[in-house]
């Protein structure tokens, strides 16, 4: 096992983790501030990807398409919040889960009617090849771009939440909603803005991942589960927790898939190893979650004191 391989796998883990962070950031704020379980968060990720595919086709430019898709998804998210989800805040979690699950099905079918079951979003030609990072370590250029954009968005978000007035309100809302309300914070507006920001982050992730994965109906459901794992590990309502949790999940999942079968191969017979390796690798992140919750039942960085 060479250093090159370990470096490449670390980059893969970082890239996966950053994309998970973009999804988890919105989810954790909505869950933390509004105490609302929004299963339809993944649908916004899907809508972001479909919108990006349409805008890229219309404008002929990948960058312009993505930049248009992000605010468009944010507006869609805010419309959803104002007309629908706002009515759910006072209900219990079960009602929220049921309603937002219904929303997943509705948005999936609407997407199918508007776009069909899938859409094309090709990788920009200039980024479709590899770049030589170190001698002997070529790495896909597009994945590097994802890492850079992911890091930039993460930094921006961190700055917004920790250094600005809006960020302060968000943190106040996450740590104690009633108190923030009593201090005269316009919670309604804040909720709508946070929801829009979460939707925008979903769109960034959806649009960036689309050329690597696939723009298709149902793409949001699988990744949503991982996003929930991330926010549970990180602590609900905490941006810092979402970042640490996302990177942990990204790296652990990548390392598990890459190296566990090899480790198993060293200790067991090939037949056992080839059966157990992939099986264990696919549950490593859930093992991680179980371990974290055992020692820190509130997650790594609980937002509520």
């Amino acid at each position, binding site marked *: *096992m*060479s250093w*090159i*391989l370990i470096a*490449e*796998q670390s980059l*893969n883990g970082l*890239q*996966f983790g950053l994309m998970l962070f973009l999804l988890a950031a919105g989810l954790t704020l909505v869950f933390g501030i509004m105490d609302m379980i929004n299963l339809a968060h993944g649908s916004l990720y899907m809508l972001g990807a479909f919108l990006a595919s349409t805008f890229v086709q219309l404008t002929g430019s990948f960058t312009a398409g993505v930049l248009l898709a992000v605010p468009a998804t944010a507006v869609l998210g805010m419309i959803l919040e104002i007309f629908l989800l706002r009515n759910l805040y006072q209900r219990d979690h079960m009602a929220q889960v049921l309603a937002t699950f219904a929303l997943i099905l509705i948005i999936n079918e609407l997407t199918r009617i508007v776009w069909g*079951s*899938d859409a*094309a979003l*090709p*990788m920009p030609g200039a980024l*479709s*090849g*590899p770049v030589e990072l170190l001698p002997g370590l*070529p*790495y*896909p*250029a*597009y*994945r590097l771009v994802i890492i850079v954009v992911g890091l930039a968005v993460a930094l921006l978000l961190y700055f917004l939440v920790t250094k600005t007035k809006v960020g302060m309100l968000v943190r106040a809302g996450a740590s104690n909603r009633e108190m923030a309300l009593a201090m005269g914070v316009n919670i309604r507006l804040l909720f709508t803005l946070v929801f829009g920001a979460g939707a925008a982050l979903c769109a960034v992730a959806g649009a960036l991942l689309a*050329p*690597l*994965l*696939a723009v*298709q*109906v*149902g793409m949001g459901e*699988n990744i949503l589960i991982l996003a929930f794992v991330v926010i549970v590990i990180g602590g609900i309502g905490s941006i810092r927790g979402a970042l640490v949790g996302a990177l942990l999940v990204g790296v652990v999942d*990548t390392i598990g*898939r*890459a190296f566990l*079968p090899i480790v198993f191969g060293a200790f067991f017979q090939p037949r056992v190893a*080839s059966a157990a*390796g*992939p*099986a264990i690798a*696919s549950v490593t992140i859930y093992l991680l979650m179980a371990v974290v919750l055992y020692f820190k039942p509130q997650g790594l960085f609980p937002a509520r004191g």
Partner: protein
Amino acid sequence: MKIKLLAAALLVFSVSAQGADKVKVGFISTLSGPSAAIGVDIRDAFLLAVKMNGGKLGGLPAEVLVGDDQFKPDVGRQIAEKNIRQDKVHFLTGIVFSNIMLASVPIAFENKIIYVSPNAAPSPMAGKDCSPYLFVASWPNDAYHEAAGQHATNRGYKNAYLIAPNYQAGKDSLTGFKRYYKGNVVAEVYTQLGQLDYAAELAQVRAAKPDALYIFLPGGMGINFIKQFVASGLSKDVPLIVPGFGDDQDIIRPVGEATLGLFDTAHWAIDFDNAANKKFVAAFEKEYKRLPTVFAAQGWDTALLIDAAVRDTKGKIEDVEAVRKAMKAARFESVRGPFKFNRNQMPIQNYYLRVVAKDAQGRLVNKTIGTVFKDHGDAYVQDCKMK
């Protein structure tokens, strides 16, 4: 396209409504969800063949009852039961996936209804569970992978790296590959079914430096893998081999230029130089404005096989034994060229090496460049007790 299809279906229905004596076919397939492209291709080709036949099969007006199994074995079985008990169909066909077929067709066999498979042919049904009422118009499940293994052997690849999803068909496919691959298997990697990001696996392949990489990743998994494989720069160092459906039109469309130069093995290709195939390819493209896949070719052949059997029995389709005999003779012009049925009623046929290249109009298509197996059957026929 959908409207046209509806029109075609209506045509089939309206023609059939007039005749008293008609052929009823239950067509069950996966027509919705992410895996729907395959079923849609089979259905489109099947209905087109019936339409070009004047809405008839073997001279009798045909009624095709199309049902969507939604990629769920239990739904497939329900439709099969309804087709058999309520609609009293003469033939069943259409199923794409082995797991759905294994759940849905035994009820047909119990009721002596012939099932003609346009795609799946799981190994148990080639061997110990073979049935007199099953005819496979496509190819046995292992065949493409066996041919790919033989191709890797022919090329003299010393080390091969294998990747498949972690489920039964994935394991069967790599078993088929290894049956004819004489070199050394560096690694046999099983990924999660439905996995879409292969960055970790690709890094391992780069580190292992194999002489060839073989993947069985049907549908969206394969689309993603090939795109990421090319983006990682590995395509310059490691030859990728896929089964025939792994880089057919349904994969070429979304992946694009990245498929150029990919090798695969199949029993049919779009460039086959026989009259039946030329007619099929031209008709399919004209009707649906896209090029046909192997799946479409299988759907077309399935319709023609039923057509020939009904014709040869002179319309006495109530006599199942007579229909079986006519089926076995398979007197029709297949788009794949000649083939015959084995003792287990699975095809004995040739398998070819194809490569993705540009045709005269600059479109990406599979070109035939050699024959891997001649008159190839399957490894399970000796377990079939049927005479």
